[in-house]
């Protein structure tokens, strides 16, 4: 824990001013090869900080706004009005239709944080929820998540249907109107 020398290539020695009247620096800038390395690190950092948020606009996945500095965006606003549902289809011999459908009460099953993440259809959260529903009850044949965002402009947050077949583990993402 006692302090070690910083790896930032500052010399730790005051810089002797090259010209009279120039300030004496408490910490001198790196010189020579160290300066080159630091410059490279600075350039790499800037590149990442510029490229990572920019990738949001190239990816075309409107919902995933993490690391894009999109605080209180219009997408955030649209999500607040999205309607979601999670329905389990049960494999009960002799039962069909509505009797074999069991809606999941998300507020009851999960902490209040997670329905909001599910509303945003975060892929990782959705996949885990669907897998968990399948694993929790062997009678569940499939789990279907649907989301509709009427307030969003067309194409911005298209309606979504994600279904997981509990027997095969296959996950299918479809557009609205697809056959259940």
């Amino acid at each position, binding site marked *: *824990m*006692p*302090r*070690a020398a*910083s*790896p*930032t290539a*500052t010399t*730790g020695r005051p*810089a002797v001013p090259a010209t009279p009247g120039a*300030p*004496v*620096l*408490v*910490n*001198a*800038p*790196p010189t020579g090869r160290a*300066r080159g390395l*630091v*410059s490279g690190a*600075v350039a790499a*950092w*800037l590149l990442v*900080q*510029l490229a990572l*948020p920019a990738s949001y*606009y190239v990816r075309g996945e409107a919902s995933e706004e*993490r*690391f*894009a*500095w*999109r*605080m*209180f*965006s*219009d997408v*955030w*606003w649209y999500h607040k009005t999205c309607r979601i549902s999670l329905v389990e289809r049960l494999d009960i011999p002799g039962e069909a239709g509505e009797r074999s459908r069991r809606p999941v009460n998300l*507020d*009851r*099953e*999960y*902490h*209040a*944080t*997670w329905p*909001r*993440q599910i509303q945003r259809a*975060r892929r*990782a*959260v959705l996949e*885990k*929820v669907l897998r*968990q529903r399948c694993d929790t009850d062997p009678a569940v044949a499939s789990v279907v998540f649907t989301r509709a965002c009427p307030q969003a*402009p067309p194409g911005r947050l298209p309606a979504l249907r994600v279904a997981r077949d509990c027997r095969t583990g296959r996950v299918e993402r479809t557009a609205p109107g697809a056959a259940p």
Partner: protein
Amino acid sequence: MSLPLRPQDPRLFHAAARAWDAYWFGPVAALRPYALAKIVYVVLALDAWLLRVPVAWRYGAGGFDVAHFGWLDALQPLPSAAFYTGLMLVTGVLAMVCALANAGWRTRLAVAALWTYGWMMSLADTYQHHYFLSLVLVLLAAMPPLSGRQALPVARRAAGRGSGRAALPAPLPMTSAWPYALLTATVAIVYAYTTVTKLDLDWRAGRVMEHLGRPRLGTLGASLEGLGEWQPALWAALSAGVVLTEMLLAAGYLLAPRLDTTRRPLLRVLAWVVFAAALSLHLTAELVLKLRIGWFSYYMIALASVCLLPGPLLARLAGVLARLVETLAEATPFTGPRAAAVIAPRGLGVLGAAAVFVCLGAGAWLGLPGAWPVGAALALLMAALTALALAGRQPRRTAQYMAATGFAVLVMWVSVVSSRARVDYYVEKGMDLAARGDPRGAAVAFGQARRYQGGRAVPGRAARPLPPRRVPDAGTD
């Protein structure tokens, strides 16, 4: 007549290289990176204890959690409230140590790593400003070592002691600090992208701004109705104002590293304008719109103050506090004539025992899951440091770390027990259990909340009402 420089002209390359070096490695007032580190670490410590610990219940609640990244999900066990609480307590203690004891880069990097893991471990926390703080903490870890004596200007007396002449204005100590310049550039990038966010159609039209602002207007809302068809234009104008403000902030932070060396009065005036813009934007967000964004606004106001205010003014503001801190430091046993007594074996033994006691007591009496293991671990660390110091391994520096850690733990304990942190933790736990069909568990949690609120439930009497139910922190902005 000289010809224009061609792209492959070496003079162009050299000019660009000089400009690059001047920007990233040129002098800045040493007070800026110094003050920035102190402020960020203190606020981060309090943030971890007072804002993050109360929401620890949500981590792993109901046996469900999803990390930010798939690889982390595969590696880590299911988080728990106790683990998250312990993590935030330790993060805060280490951050406070960094503020108090001029910690080395390894300790500062540890703070960055622990804080980053704290939000990475779960999508229950998607506050983008927590990610921003991770970037700030990494850059703070790379900052050059600076002490208060190096960073603060020292007034020079005019010639002739007792001459009665006033002290000469103290020159600002300067330093090269490329991490500081990189931090201001990062902030500029953040503001630039937040500007881009607000160029979307519904933002430009004012609809998002209306959604944020209208519920907060209160009685003003009625008068807005009188505007009739001008209402949309008003909200659109407010949105445009936000966009222009953020563009100004992005530009201002790009100029910040050169504020201390510029001779152009226009730039200094611009810095004031940018500072005022930062204040207005973030105070509006916090006090008018009441956005639930943790302490993000205060971090940004602190950044603006340190990066944009004139150096001499900053020195005057910091000077009062610094003199207080120096007085306290001189009064402690680690400097001056009493240092030898303290770092003598008996002094170290007493200090070590006190630090161990403080850590154990704080852990045992915090009343939160995960606190006791943290207290025990810190107590073991103090015991180990005492042994190191007694063995002659940098006794003065080790004693400073021990005292800083003990003091940080004490501040942690006082902050948590005197705030709503524990009440909010158990209220959130109770609300979650009640919503998920566990009324018995909820009742126990609410009972614990009442206990920390300051009143025990007495059988036969109506229980003292809990604090008004706060709208659950969404964890995401």
